[in-house]
């Protein structure tokens, strides 16, 4: 039987090969029709070709677009409302929204393989530039260059995904930034001064550690400064750290993931390793922050603060959406300062996929989603920050989203909005090539740092060579 089985299997392999060859050439056509990156200029061609004057004219052929996105049921509702507004303004355009609840990348990649991509959609940031390079995304500069309504300079630099000079893959749906969020009642109960909100007054590191120590309480009610403090029986932690976003600390200490041209791995260099060590010390030396293991049982964001599992969190500004509806007495502070006062900014872009038959209308939709007037509920709920500069600069526009609602308490404008606007630094996914590969090397090493098994310097030195070998450079941005 074995002989026969072997024969049969090998035959199948051979046939498989032939078939795969055919499949391969199909794939090629798919790729080609999607266009390589050189095909991007065709965007503007087809764009102008499809243009039929201003939105006010009536003689438009009906156009149907597909828009994909993710998000909670609430986000879903608001985004769909925004789209409804768009269809009202452009009655000849129908937008079919497709909400993808989970595994967004898997679903979108599969759609790409089947040439069934939507026209417009959110895309995960760490995938975007690769998709752009492979010619699956339009260069938004082709639209921006000729658009009378909006210019590149109107858009926050930190929300832009560039895959080469002059090639803009996408603009964030929203700007997100890191800050401190805290439960005011806890501070007041323990008589600890509230965290500063202005960047100039930010905690220095020692003050931050001390504050966190005062806020960390064991089962017997002793804080972490007490000599009898029992780190095994912690009831309330001083601060919850987003260990996955350790670059927040690295930036604050003047460190980098890679050097400017992406030729050198910088995380093992002193400023970066020291910053990571500081965070690890909060966990293992001072016992004021839960380890990743302990974090698994502490609800993140608003719930952790509300239940007083943690007194402060370092988190993204999106947590405001939950805080705003929590009825909790919460406050916002700027991140502690190490070398510099900076905050890390994040966000996933909305892109136009190659293969759309209506790039012009797709661009109108992107513009619509970029305009906070159409998605104001998302901004005022605290989930999104605008991507247009004037919404940070003009007081009447700022008032529209960042004032007078429960998600944006006093101090918000200094601690998050202005800080992100003035001191924001993009997360590495905006510029480092093949970041998932690099992370696959770094993250396991950092597991041992957060658990206190090794020092940050030791762990990072251990993977330095491997990480250096995995570097593929950076995407160049326009200067």
């Amino acid at each position, binding site marked *: *039987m*074995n002989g026969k*089985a072997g024969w049969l299997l090998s035959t*199948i*392999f051979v*046939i*498989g*090969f032939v*078939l*795969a*060859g055919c*499949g*391969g050439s199909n*794939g*090629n056509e798919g*790729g*080609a029709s*999607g266009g390589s990156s050189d095909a991007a200029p065709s965007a503007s061609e087809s764009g102008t070709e499809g243009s039929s004057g201003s939105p006010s004219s009536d003689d438009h052929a009906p156009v149907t677009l597909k828009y994909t996105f993710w998000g909670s049921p609430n986000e879903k509702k608001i985004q769909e409302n925004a789209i409804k507004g768009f269809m009202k303004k452009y009655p000849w355009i129908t937008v079919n929204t497709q909400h993808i609840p989970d595994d967004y*990348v*898997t679903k979108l*990649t599969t759609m*790409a*393989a089947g040439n069934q991509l939507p026209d417009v959609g959110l895309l995960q940031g*760490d*995938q975007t530039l*690769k*998709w752009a390079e*492979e*010619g*699956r995304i339009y260069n938004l500069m082709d639209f921006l260059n000729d658009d009378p309504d909006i210019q590149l300079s109107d858009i926050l630099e930190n929300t832009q995904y560039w895959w080469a000079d002059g090639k803009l893959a996408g603009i964030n749906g929203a700007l997100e930034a890191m800050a401190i969020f805290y439960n005011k009642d806890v501070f007041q109960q323990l008589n600890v001064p509230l965290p500063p909100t202005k960047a100039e007054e930010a905690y220095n590191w020692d003050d931050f550690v001390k504050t966190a120590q005062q806020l960390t309480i064991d089962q017997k009610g002793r804080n972490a400064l007490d000599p009898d403090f029992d780190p*095994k029986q*912690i009831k309330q932690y001083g601060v919850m750290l987003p260990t996955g976003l350790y670059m927040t600390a690295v930036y604050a200490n003047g460190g980098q993931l890679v050097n400017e041209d992406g030729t050198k791995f910088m995380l093992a260099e002193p400023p970066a390793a020291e910053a990571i060590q500081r965070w690890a010390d909060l966990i293992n030396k001072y016992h004021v922050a839960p*380890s*990743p*293991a*302990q974090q*698994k*049982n502490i609800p993140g964001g608003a719930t952790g603060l509300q239940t007083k599992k943690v007194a402060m969190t370092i988190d993204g500004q999106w947590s405001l959406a939950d805080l705003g509806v929590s009825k909790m007495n919460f406050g916002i502070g700027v991140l502690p300062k190490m070398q510099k006062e900076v905050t890390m900014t994040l966000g996933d872009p909305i892109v136009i996929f190659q293969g759309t038959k209506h790039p012009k209308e797709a661009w109108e939709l992107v513009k619509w989603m970029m305009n906070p007037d159409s998605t104001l509920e998302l901004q005022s709920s605290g989930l999104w920050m605008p991507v247009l500069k004037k919404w940070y600069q003009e007081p009447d526009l700022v008032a529209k989203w960042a004032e007078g609602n429960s998600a944006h308490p006093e101090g918000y404008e200094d601690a998050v909005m202005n800080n992100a606007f003035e001191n924001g630094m993009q997360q590495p996914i905006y510029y480092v090539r*093949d970041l*998932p*590969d690099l992370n*696959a*090397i770094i*993250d*396991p*090493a950092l*597991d*041992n740092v957060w*658990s206190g098994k090794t020092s940050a310097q030791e762990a990072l030195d251990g993977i330095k060579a*491997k990480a250096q070998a995995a570097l593929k450079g950076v995407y160049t941005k326009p200067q």
Partner: protein
Amino acid sequence: MRENGSDRRAKPGKKWRRARKEALFGFLFASPVILGYLIFVFGPLAFSLGISFTDYNILSKMSFVGLANYRSLFDGTNPFFYKSLLVTSYYVVLSVPLQVVFAFAVALLLNRSIRGKAVFRTIFFLPTMVPVVASSVIWLWLFNPDLGLLNQVLKFLHLPQSQWIFSERMAVPSLVLMSLWTVGGTMVIFLAGLQGIPKHLYEAVDVDGGTARHKLFRITVPMMTPTLFFNTVMGFIGSFQVFGQAYIMTGGGPNNATLFYSFFTYREAFESMRMGSASAISWILFVIILLLTLLIFKSSSLWVYYESEGKA
């Protein structure tokens, strides 16, 4: 898998006609699954084998790279290949025997004439029905080093406590422990198998004055070997492809301690976007499982008893 000699006694002409008819019907009855294989399975398998020799990343065109994907795995250019192979093998070796024995024991227990049998069976199957997203929350709490129930119990018994899935050494054993809790499917197959054992065999043991142990080892276990065989083979195939726990609970950590093969494949395919390499990884696993399965099949004639063949 032995030759079936039952119709040797028939006359040559008749025998030939019958054999031909039997072959015809055999093929006919099996045709749905054969067609299903050709339509739904063969193409994708062939496709994946084909792209394992290319640098296909799903979005790009593919170009032929020969054995480069395989080479970069075996020569260690990809730093995770051997690690994930090791981690997965460890999981398989630990989990398959435990799962099979445990499920068999539970099935034997639930096959006795006990009160509330239906309720007990349903209860023991419950963990299999709770979606992983929900059950993983519970297990994360059970495993929590400070507050988790497992450590609380150990502490109460004055036994050393563990870091469970958060320790490199204990992560895989912890996940094996968790997998024992969802052996409901295997148990159901054993239960179904236990129904097939003719009662008169047990009655014969009673007549001979045999004990419960005789019944178990002389009748139940031998009669259950086809089912045991099935569950072992499926256990192997399933454990080699363990995915959900790593995907949802550990993310492959700590320090790659649970970087299971399927999780590694998924990451390679959809995060690093190297479908060519992911396909090569999958085909290596395919060959490993196939060889092991063939080995188990070969050995089966030594320990699996088929009523349909045993009496031929």
